[in-house]
Every structure is written in C-alpha cells, then in structure tokens.
C-alpha cells in the first residue's frame, strides 16, 4: 500500500476537537463551518473547557497604542508568547471606549464621550454588550472626580457569569468626604446593578494602574498606598484586606505591582537592581512565598520605567514607555516582543492589561 497516497476517512471526534481548540479564535470561527459535526464539536461546554485550559497556558499583554499627534482612534496591540504581535481594534463596539479591566478573555470598557456608560466585550470573538446604566444620577456622587476609583471585572468560567464592579468614595452634599464607600456591582445573570455601602478606614485616591485580579470568587485591588490588597468577595459583597509580604516595603525606589500567576495572587516588587516575585500559593492561610529574585542589571537603564503586566511560572511580560518585553525565568533571557514605531504615544504601561484569548461569551 502506498503510504503517501493514503487518505484518511476520518479522525475520531476528540482529535478534531483537540485540533479546533488550538486554532486562534478568528480561524476557529471560520473553520468550524466546515460541516455540521465540526460546528457541533466547537460548541458546547466540553469544548469551552478544553479551549480554556489551553488558553491558560498562553497569557498575553493587551496594549492600547495611542497616536497623540493625530486624531485617529487608538489601536490595540496584543502580544503573545506563541504567536508574536498582532493588531486589532474595538471598532465593532461602534463607540470610542477606553479599556478599564480585563479578565479571562473579556474586557470591561468605559465610553469616552458618555460618562457612566460601560461595555463588556470579547475582543477575539467580537461580541459586545452595552451594560444598563447603574442607578446613579448622570453626575455621579463618586469622590473626588465622579469617576469610580476602583473598577473590576470578574468572569467566572464555571458558571459562565460575570460581574462588573465600580466602587469609590461617596461625596455627600456640602460636607467633607466621609468614609462612606459605595460599591456598584453588575451581575450578568440578572442584567442588573446592585449597590451597597460600607465604611473604609484607609483613604485612597486611586487604584494602582490597572492592577486588579480575580481569583477564588473575589476581586483584589492594589491601592495607591501599597500597604495591602483590598478584596471584594463577590459571593457575599464583603470587603476585607490582605496584607502584602512583610519584606515588601514602599520606600522610595521600590515599586509594587499586583498580578496573577497561574491562578494565584502574585506581587512583584521592583527596586533599582532587583525584581522580586512573590506568589500566594496558599490562599486560605494568606501566605506569600518569594518564588524568584531577578537581577535587573542588564536592563539597568530601563528600570525606572518598567512595569510588569502578566506572567506565568515561566515568563514575565513587562511594559515600558515604548516596548513590551518578555523575561524567561528559567534561562534568564530578556527579549523585546514589541516596540512602538511612532515617537508620540502615551507610555505603553499606561494602558497595558494582562489578557488571554478565550471564547467566553458576554451574553
């Protein structure tokens, strides 16, 4: 029998499913239309599960590249360790938006012209949903500037639900701001917002740039004061705090960032010469372990402007003013993944988010 002319009559279904699950989302959307069987295999919970498990292995960085010299809309760049760099846009939303949070493949965006209007979208499948207005009046009572201080997106892959959280200090009429902290939570299952109020001891005025992580049913923010994480348990609408590792101090010259590392909370501390990576392997006991201490000697000149964005146990993505870099932890190699061509852009770290490609639907 001539091997090279052999045509296979079929692949088992699970093999087809494994191949389809490894396609980039655009190709998947097209190629599943090959026949009814393939279309069916590419839908359903089992396929979503396999696709999701694979995408966890491939974290990415999403950056908004804005050309400040021209009026043209900004474009989004996605940097991926497997496939490199590719550009895409959010123009399918048909409105000018800014990305505020990213979680499990969905993005939460706020409208630039219409304050208080939020969207949730999957930039890979090009699905989007405009959220109903929260019950606040058009001029919101968030202090200091009417914009929510904390924004978070929580996408639960098991229940297929997501929540959007907007929280901030309340500005009562005519008085100095109290400790009243308002929290608005949107629930995709009910398509409604709920609101609850609590008291907060710390006064913080901003969340650390895009630093919010959804793990174990709770959203975690690193606030500007950097002493602890502010945690919202979405199952019971309760706030609490998690302390940062003892050794992490916020003295001048030390910067602290909150990321995720393979399903665990991670804090990255950058000093002049070192990048220390901490991971909370035991969430119940709230114990931190330093998993790596990286020398920053060979990128010494860039250290003041370098920001870690996303990571796995094997590599860390960082953004500077004009570049996205990746550091391989095992062989200690730095690589430039992307560099801005135009000189007049906002710093990349300003609008960089951890991201991964999923087929999570926002409906």
């Amino acid at each position, binding site marked *: 029998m001539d*091997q*090279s002319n052999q045509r*296979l009559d079929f*692949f*088992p279904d699970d093999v087809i499913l494994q191949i389809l699950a*490894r396609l980039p989302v655009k*190709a998947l959307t097209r190629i599943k*239309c090959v*026949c009814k069987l393939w279309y069916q295999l590419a839908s359903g919970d089992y396929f979503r599960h396999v696709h999701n498990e694979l995408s966890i292995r491939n974290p990415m960085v999403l950056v908004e590249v804005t050309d400040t010299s021209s009026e043209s809309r900004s474009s989004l760049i996605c940097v991926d360790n497997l496939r490199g760099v590719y550009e895409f846009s959010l123009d399918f939303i048909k409105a000018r938006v800014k990305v505020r949070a990213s979680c499990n493949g969905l993005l939460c965006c706020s409208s630039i012209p219409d304050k208080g209007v939020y969207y949730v979208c999957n930039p890979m499948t090009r699905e989007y949903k405009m959220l109903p207005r929260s019950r606040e009046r058009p001029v919101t009572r968030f202090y200091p500037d009417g914009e929510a201080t904390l924004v978070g997106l929580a996408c639960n892959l098991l229940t297929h639900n997501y929540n959007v959280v907007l929280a901030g200090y309340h500005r009562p009429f005519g008085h100095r701001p109290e400790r009243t902290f308002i929290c608005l939570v949107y629930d995709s299952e009910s398509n409604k917002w709920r609101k609850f109020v609590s008291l907060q001891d710390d006064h913080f005025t901003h969340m650390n740039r895009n630093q919010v992580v959804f793990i174990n049913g709770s959203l975690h923010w690193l606030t500007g004061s950097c002493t602890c994480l502010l945690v919202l348990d979405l199952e019971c609408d309760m706030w609490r705090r998690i302390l940062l590792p003892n050794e992490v101090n916020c003295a001048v010259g030390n910067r602290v960032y909150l990321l995720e590392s393979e399903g665990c909370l991670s804090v990255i501390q950058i000093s002049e010469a070192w990048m220390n990576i901490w991971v909370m392997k035991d969430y119940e006991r709230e114990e931190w372990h330093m998993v790596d201490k990286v020398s920053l000697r060979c990128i010494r000149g860039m250290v003041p402007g370098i920001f870690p964005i996303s990571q796995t146990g094997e590599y860390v993505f960082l953004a500077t003013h004009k570049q996205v870099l990746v550091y391989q932890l095992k062989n200690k190699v730095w690589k430039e993944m992307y560099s801005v061509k135009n000189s007049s852009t906002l710093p990349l770290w300003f609008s960089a988010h951890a991201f991964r490609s999923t087929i999570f639907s926002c409906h």
Partner: protein
Amino acid sequence: MIVLNSSDGATFEVEESVAVQSQTIKHMIEDNCADTSIPLPNVNGVTLARVLEYIKKHAEAKDDEEGLKSFDAEFVKVDQASLFEIILAANYLDIKGLLDLTCQTVADQIKDLTVEEVRAIFNIMNDFTPEEEAKLRNDHAWAFE
C-alpha cells in the same frame, strides 16, 4: 523491556519506563496483558517507529527544554499523511505530549486556509444547505475576510 507488535508484524523493544508515557500501554502492563508482547493493531510499523523515537527522546532528555523544543520542531516536519498517522497513533496510545504537539501543528497548518481548502484536506462533505452556509458566513463575516 517491553515488546510491541505493530499492525503489519514489525516488532519493537523498548524500556518499560519509556513505554509508560503511553497511558494505553501503561494500563495494559498494569492489567497484566503484557506478558509476552503487546499487540498494537491500530499502528503500523513506520508510525510506531516514529512514535518510539519521540517517547525515547522525551524520556532521556527530560530536563533539556531547549533541546526538546528543537527536537519537536524537527519531528513534525513530515508530510501530511504521516503527520495524520502519528496523530491517530498518539491518540490511540494516549501520549498526551505527542498529541498536543501534533494537534497544534495541524492547527497551525490550517489556520489560514479557507473552509473549502480544509474540507479538501480532511476529505469532508459539506452537509450544510446553501442557505445555512450563507447564514453562517453572514453572521461571522469578519472571520471570512
């Protein structure tokens, strides 16, 4: 040492510690069906030889990440028919790493193709009606550009 028999009568000897990368073989050994040799009626000699090459390399060079990466890249540089045979063997023998590698390779090969080209490669009949197909293309027009 374990003895494996391919569908076309070829015999291969391999260390048990290497062979158990195949969950199928591992279970056969555990269930004591492997006293003399293990028959593999679903895999021909040529393909089985290639699969053994893979699992031997992955057993001996386990910690050499860079070396394995370049080995894997070279390993899949074969014609499509052979690649498909290896996928079927990896699936039957339940060798996760090899299935992962070969499925990713096929996915990479087809990702830029049109629907018609993919049908030709996999010898698939289009069972959508023209109306159904038109609707699909319309709903996901951006993916067909």
